[in-house]
């Protein structure tokens, strides 16, 4: 989808400000949101692409007015509701009531993430890479053009490369295709490449003659140039 999350190339957001000695989290609710997202992901009712898609459903003005963990919280609530874990109305009610967590009120179900399961969850060595013997459509050095597609669903081809010409820098191998995976339509294994786009090709005279942007793109996003 062409959402406000697709920020590459936008003006008007002000300077980049690096906070010195920044802590990992800035508030306890950020810690808990982070951990709740990972723990609930452990139920494997949704995949990573669905998680990203969920965050992209946040209303645009709200997305831009809030930070990272608010996006995570919004996306988690959206997924919990859609997968029947928790209705937002129930959460609204509990939040208004302000009741303190009753942590010991239930034993974790079998299948819930336990402390001893955390190292295994985080040592994950497989995310989106696949072993399927899919041949690549391109090889390093090939000239390509990024397709001009504008799907309403989740996609990982940013607007700023669509219709632009680049060249294959390297082939990363076979991966899950996010557009179908986010929609529950399968993994559609295919190659991912780093594609080099000259800054001038992407931005015209406003780009620097020497510079380039490398974007990871799937076979389905590319045509021969």
């Amino acid at each position, binding site marked *: 989808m062409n959402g406000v999350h697709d920020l590459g190339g936008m003006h008007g957001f002000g300077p980049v400000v690096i906070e010195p000695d920044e802590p990992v989290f800035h508030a306890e609710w950020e810690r808990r949101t982070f951990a709740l997202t990972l723990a609930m992901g452990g139920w494997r009712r949704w995949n990573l692409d669905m998680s990203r898609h969920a965050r992209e459903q946040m209303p645009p003005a709200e997305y831009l007015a809030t930070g990272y963990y608010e996006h995570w919280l919004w996306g988690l609530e959206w997924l919990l509701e859609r997968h029947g874990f928790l209705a937002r109305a129930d959460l609204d009610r509990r939040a208004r009531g302000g009741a303190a967590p009753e942590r010991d009120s239930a034993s974790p179900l079998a299948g819930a993430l336990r402390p001893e399961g955390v190292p295994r969850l985080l040592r994950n060595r497989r995310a989106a890479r696949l072993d399927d013997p899919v041949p690549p459509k391109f090889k390093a050095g090939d000239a390509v053009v990024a397709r001009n597609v504008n799907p309403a669903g989740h996609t990982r081809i940013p607007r700023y490369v669509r219709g632009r010409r680049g060249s294959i820098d390297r082939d990363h191998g076979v991966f899950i295709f996010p557009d179908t995976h986010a929609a529950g339509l399968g993994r559609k294994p295919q190659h991912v490449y780093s594609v080099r786009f000259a800054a001038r090709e992407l931005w015209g005279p406003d780009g620097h003659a020497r510079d380039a942007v490398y974007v990871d793109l*799937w076979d389905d996003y590319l045509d021969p140039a």
Partner: protein
Amino acid sequence: MTGPRGHDHEHERRDEHGHSHPPTDDPAHPHNAPLSDVQLRVRALESLLTEKGLVDPAALDELIDTYETKVGPRNGARVVAKAWVDPEFKRRLLDDATATLADLGYIGRQGEDMVVIENTSRVHNLVVCTLCSCYPWPVLGLPPVWYKSAPYRARAVLDPRGVLREVGVDLPDDVEVRVWDSTAELRYLVLPERPPGTEGLTEEQLAELVTRDAMIGVARVKAPGPTR
């Protein structure tokens, strides 16, 4: 902060871009201020999911502790220092980052497939994720606010030299800037240039010089000494 369970005495302030900031002693916002909407909401969410048996709060604590105390940019700094002193390691790191990092134990969630890119006197690399905030957790920990925020995500691809200038890195016109937009599941780590004047330092001493920002590409590594 009042520790990992200290929900009650927190508050945050937000800057004009809506980002959270750590608690301060700003007298306008006393530490016993009522809980904000988002604090109440996350507490409610955790309590409901816990009551349903879907999450174990102890597992949440373990997840948080991992990224607050165990996994962070010191991992990446050790890799960089090793690459500076060991040419064979550096060759393998650039050639097959995933396997080479896995040998050191720096593998896992949001770092399953790694690419290391080398800064030289001719090429400066910069990493961004314009679509969300992808970041190599096993070597750098969780991303800082500026990396996740709109200004960086918007401008890193369009005006990388302007961004770098803003954060104190002035690049000559004849250096090529390469921006890596992490749109897929590859995660990028920049191998910064080893600063001159560090010939006598040990690998451990070198690792101490390497900053998170240098491994994202928005800073140079500086030699120790009076200019630091």
